């Protein structure tokens, strides 16, 4: 199953494969081996399973869909049902080295609070989201007068779980407001591969389909 909020790549990867979706691979590359990881919105456990197998992390997952939770636990991954808005409050401060929120921030009710929770329970937060500043989104609004709908954001406005869209610059602005330090950032293309543009440049906000940030307090 692909991420429910966005459609990044339709190629399905078999379970227990050591190859994972390209955008998830970029996240995995940011994680040091043997660390404690919380994957929020872990879906079917593709990233969590990979990190557990290849980086020997002490990984936990939180997933909204019952089906996702079931599939994760059936693979032996410690995952529980829950969502980013409601269920992060129980975890103690600094319980994890990394709190990962992949392609989920835009579907939360209070993105700012969620981000601050990530940085409370994790020493570092790894966050990825679709970029609303991408030229196609701008094109849809400017020339079609319609909310963006494209292979990357396939769901109609009235059905999408995505309620808090932002651009790369918006996100950076929020981090600045919160005094959050951007440790690393990159933009990705439609298939989730890294685009070699300086992520702070305005080109990144124009050509990046998605953005990936590693943050700390």
């Amino acid at each position, binding site marked *: 199953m692909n991420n429910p909020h966005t459609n990044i790549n339709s190629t399905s990867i078999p379970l227990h494969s050591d190859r994972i979706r390209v955008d998830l691979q970029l996240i995995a590359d940011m994680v040091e081996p043997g660390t404690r990881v919380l994957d929020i919105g872990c879906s079917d456990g593709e990233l969590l399973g990979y990190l557990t197998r290849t980086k020997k992390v*002490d990984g936990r997952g939180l997933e909204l869909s019952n089906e996702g*939770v*079931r599939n994760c636990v059936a693979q*032996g991954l410690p995952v*529980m049902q829950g969502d980013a808005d409601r*269920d992060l409050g*129980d*975890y*103690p401060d600094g*319980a994890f080295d990394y709190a990962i929120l992949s392609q989920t921030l835009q579907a939360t009710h209070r993105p700012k609070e969620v981000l601050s929770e990530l940085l409370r329970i994790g020493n570092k937060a790894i966050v990825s989201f679709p970029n609303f500043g991408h030229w196609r989104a701008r094109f849809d609004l400017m020339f079609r007068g319609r909310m963006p709908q494209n292979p990357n954001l396939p769901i109609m406005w009235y059905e999408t779980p995505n309620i808090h869209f932002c651009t790369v610059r918006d996100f950076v602005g929020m981090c600045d407001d919160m005094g959050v330090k951007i440790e690393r950032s990159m933009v990705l293309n439609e298939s989730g591969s890294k685009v070699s543009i300086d992520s702070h440049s305005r080109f990144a906000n124009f050509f990046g389909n998605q953005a990936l940030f590693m943050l700390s307090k």
Partner: protein
Amino acid sequence: MPTTASKDKRAPLPGHHMVLGETDKLRLDSGVEFGPFTIAYQTYGELNADKSNAILVCHALTGDQYVADEVHPITGKDGWWLEIVGPGKIIDTEKYFVICSNVIGGCLGSTGPKDTNPETSKPWGLDFPVITIADMVRAQTMLIDALGIDSLFAVIGGSMGGMQVLEWCKSYPERVFAAAPIATSFRHSAQNIAFHEVGRQAVMADPDWCGGNYLLEDKKPARGLAVARMTAHITYLSQPALHRKFGRKLQNRGSITYSFDHDFQVESYLRHQGKSFVDRFDANSYLYITRAMDYFDLSIDYDGRLADAFKGSKTRFCIVSFSSDWCFTTAESRQLAHALNAASCNVSCVEIESDKGHDAFLLDEPDFHMVLGGFIDGAAEIRGLK
């Protein structure tokens, strides 16, 4: 009709019996030093050389040690978790050494109120000390010690069995590698206590209960215990499951009879459930074990801060609930999971969609079996069990 107790005396039930607490007695929560006592238990599979493959399965209120027997010695039916435990099954007895013991206070071979009080040479009856879930678990630790097992690979159980699992994890965390509390809670709810009280009052209202001394009087409070079972049985099902199974269908008749006969199939079913239960269960045991569940509240020693009960625990937890279970709801399971999160424990928490109510954990639920199997296999891999 001979009572279950007198049947037992004539022909001891099959399986292992261990006498414990001869020198070091069992200290009960009530303060009583109890012993010696007998624990009846079954084992399946072989303990490996380093004694690392033992799984303790804990039974529910009216369950017993015959978890994976093909033929139950009293009912003649399948063991209560034959679906799950056995060669090549989810709890694979070719890989694991499975132990299941009758709880103390029970009536299938472990010392309970129907046994003889050595001081009076009469059945204990209500002189039997009140037992708690922690007492049951303490007795189990004595059995596990006697079997020479230091650490259990897993402790698994549903309903009251799940309470024992949690008690193990709280009191002996270093002895439990993996734990699966299923369809259970960290405390018995007011509603569950209320239903138990109805059951107990039904038993006590039966004149044949004789103030708890029915064995001395050669009587049996069969009607009271049957009513208790009928009530409890309803709570183990769900509205949709009852409707699917019975609807308003009539029992072997074309129309209602304008009487209090069992016109409806559901009535006939419940009467049968009640009747068959009294053949295998002791009424006083029912009082004692329901009381043990009522008293269960893991958070009580921690001023209600449940997370503190699990601080520093390295155990891997898998909590399972069933969507239509109104005895032990998913909300309660989530409360437990949140407490475990707050204690930085390794926890999985899954709700299984099922309309079969509380009893779903005993039934053929493929999603549940997939989850439990995945959890056990994953834990075995980390433990290095092949």
